[in-house]
């Protein structure tokens, strides 16, 4: 799975830029499968992408268009998908988002994630052999009706609480 370390993330968006470029040949946030949340006033930069979670909420697709691939990646069938947006609604952290009727979600680039290759901060790392399972159940609460961006912000804030506490105690010495 992909591990994000917000302490190291500078918010440069190279993950987002390269994800978009190597999947579509063009650069834009709407075409990227990783989206960096930036909260300038708190110094938070957090790349949000599919955690290959334990629950696999997105696989409850009514059209059965979503399956899990050999690396644990989410695979969306372009022929079965009817762009209903259920996967976007179900994902509690905003890691799937439709743009122009196509669901954008991390596919792990076939086992060699571009975002990881391009991050020279070490803020995104890939551990293909990790057996650890991440539960996103706690993020389900309050997720209903939220936009993907709002869900990403909630997630980023929660995941960086400890970082902010540690920052405050470490400076000025």
């Amino acid at each position, binding site marked *: 799975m992909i591990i994000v370390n917000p302490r190291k993330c500078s918010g440069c968006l190279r993950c987002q*830029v390269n994800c978009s470029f190597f999947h579509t040949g063009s*650069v834009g946030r709407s075409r990227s499968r990783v989206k960096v949340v930036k909260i300038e006033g708190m*110094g938070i930069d957090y790349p949000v992408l599919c955690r290959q979670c334990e629950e696999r909420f997105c696989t409850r697709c009514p059209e059965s268009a979503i399956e899990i691939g050999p690396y644990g990646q989410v695979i969306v069938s372009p022929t079965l998908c009817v762009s209903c947006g259920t996967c976007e609604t179900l994902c509690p952290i905003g890691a799937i988002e439709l743009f122009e009727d196509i669901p954008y979600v991390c596919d792990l680039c076939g086992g060699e994630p571009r975002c990881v290759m391009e991050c020279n901060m070490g803020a995104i790392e890939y551990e293909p052999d990790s057996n650890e399972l991440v539960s996103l159940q706690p993020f389900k609460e309050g997720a209903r009706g939220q936009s993907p961006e709002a869900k990403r912000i909630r997630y980023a804030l929660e995941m960086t609480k400890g970082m902010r506490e540690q920052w405050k105690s470490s400076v000025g010495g």
Partner: protein
Amino acid sequence: MLYGYSGHILRVDLSSGKIIREKSDPHYMLKAIGGRGLNSLRLYDELRRDIDPLSPENILLIGVGPLTGSLLSSSAYMTISGKSPMTGILGDSAAGGFFGPELKQAGYDQIIITGKADKPCYLLIADDHVEIKEASHLWGSDIWQTTSAIRQELTDNAFQIAAIGPAGENLVKFATVACNNSRMFGRTGMGCLFGSKNLKAIAVRGTTPVSIADTLTYMDLCRELDRRILAHPEWNDRHALGSTLLMKALNNIGILPTNHFQKGVCEYVDKISGQELAEKFKVKNKSCFNCNIHCSRYYITGDVESEGPEFETLCSYSSRIGVDDLHFTLKMAAYLNRMGIDALSSGETIGWAMECFQRGLLNKDDVDGLDFTWGNKETIEEILGLIVQRKGVGDAFAEGTRSLSTKFGRGSEKYALHVKGLDIICGDPRGIKAFGLTYAIASRGADHLRAEPFFELTERYDEAEKRWGIRDIANRLSNNGKAVLVEYTERQALLTDCMTMCKNIGLSMDILDFDLAGRLLKAGTGLNFTPERVEKSLRGIIDADRKMNIDFGIDASMDTLPRRFTHESLEEGPSKGQVVPIKEMVKEYYRLRGWDEEGRPA
């Protein structure tokens, strides 16, 4: 379709409310390229020269380039231009962050704003949807508050906001515009220009990706550029400290402005250095869009937290005005960013006042009882508050040092360190001769970024010999060949601005050359950007800027430096005994530029 370019220009007239979306003209783009070049040519073609900069007739331009927001590293920049309220000549300021790339995705290469709204407003751009929105409820808010208030109002955190603070609203002549809270369009008073149009902010959100003509070639060229950046000998220091590394670096060569350029060596530099800042207050690296150096920093002190500061702010509010307290400097940096004031120009008004106090030219009675003793922190805080609100003596300070010193007279004009009304940056030109020439001839006044001839600091003697046949070019204390260097780096700087890359990378690190740039532009746009075409365009833009400035009243007598740098030598340190022989250098520069002896293009 156009590649690279978004393909549209947005015209907004705030007086009538009329909004027009027109196609970008590829022939025009070949001449203008993008960013600063595009803005300069637009002003040259459309600006009435004799207008008051604060009048509705002034044009406010926001320009990005064909490669902004693309795979190209550090393609983050954009330029804001107009007739400067600060200087009355060409005004422009560039910054990185994330606004420029977002504007590209919204589908625009340039925004052209004219007129004046009858009440405070902000401009909302969401792809094709463009709207002038009421902003009375935001008037009076600082930049950080405004940025988050607009995002909340639009219920979308992904909007990029460029905003002014109270200083811009109150028409402080050196008011700034900021995006992402801390990326500042600092110089020449573009925030004042926003304020004069009752324009509080621009909010932009775009969903159209940036498309490239020859994707595979472009990718290879971007990778080549990345290799140059990552292999650069300065990468580690720039990554760790960013521009704040200059505090110690400039001090080591005796050109760190101390007590308003009376000294070039600061004995307490270790208390205010970039290293000290990194060790005590930095919590992580920050970055502009798509950069692989990440030279910016996030800091937390007990009082404030923010991204930044850059060297010019750090020095302007420490050694330049006699402050040895880094904690205080950071507090001021955050205050300047929130209120929207340029650190350099505000710092120069304070430095001027402090030197005038030292020399007995001013006393407390002249300045509302304020005590401008070197490093007086209470006075610094108080005068900034007065400047932002234009209260009391702050009203005169808010006009900038040139006007302020003329008002007080008594010989204090001699200590106003500016060229053409723009205050001098933090680098004593007496120990860096090519920089001296740059300040003198830069088309927006005393500014290093118009040419940033960093090469003279690198001691790359063999490379100097190879490129220009003059070894002295790599010797900072020599004036030999410096006009040759500045003529070259002035074009390199403009090229970097047109491609909207970071000038630290393209220029200071000497990463960008005309051949690589031509190939990037050609692969990016599919237009016939040969290296020759690019060169011709750059020379054309530099000449157009000059002609426009001549129309604004600039002549050869103004291409000079304050007397301090040409006649008073530094008394100690590694640049001891030096002055800038500016006349000969300017003359040589005109000749190389192909201008006549009065500095007029053909």
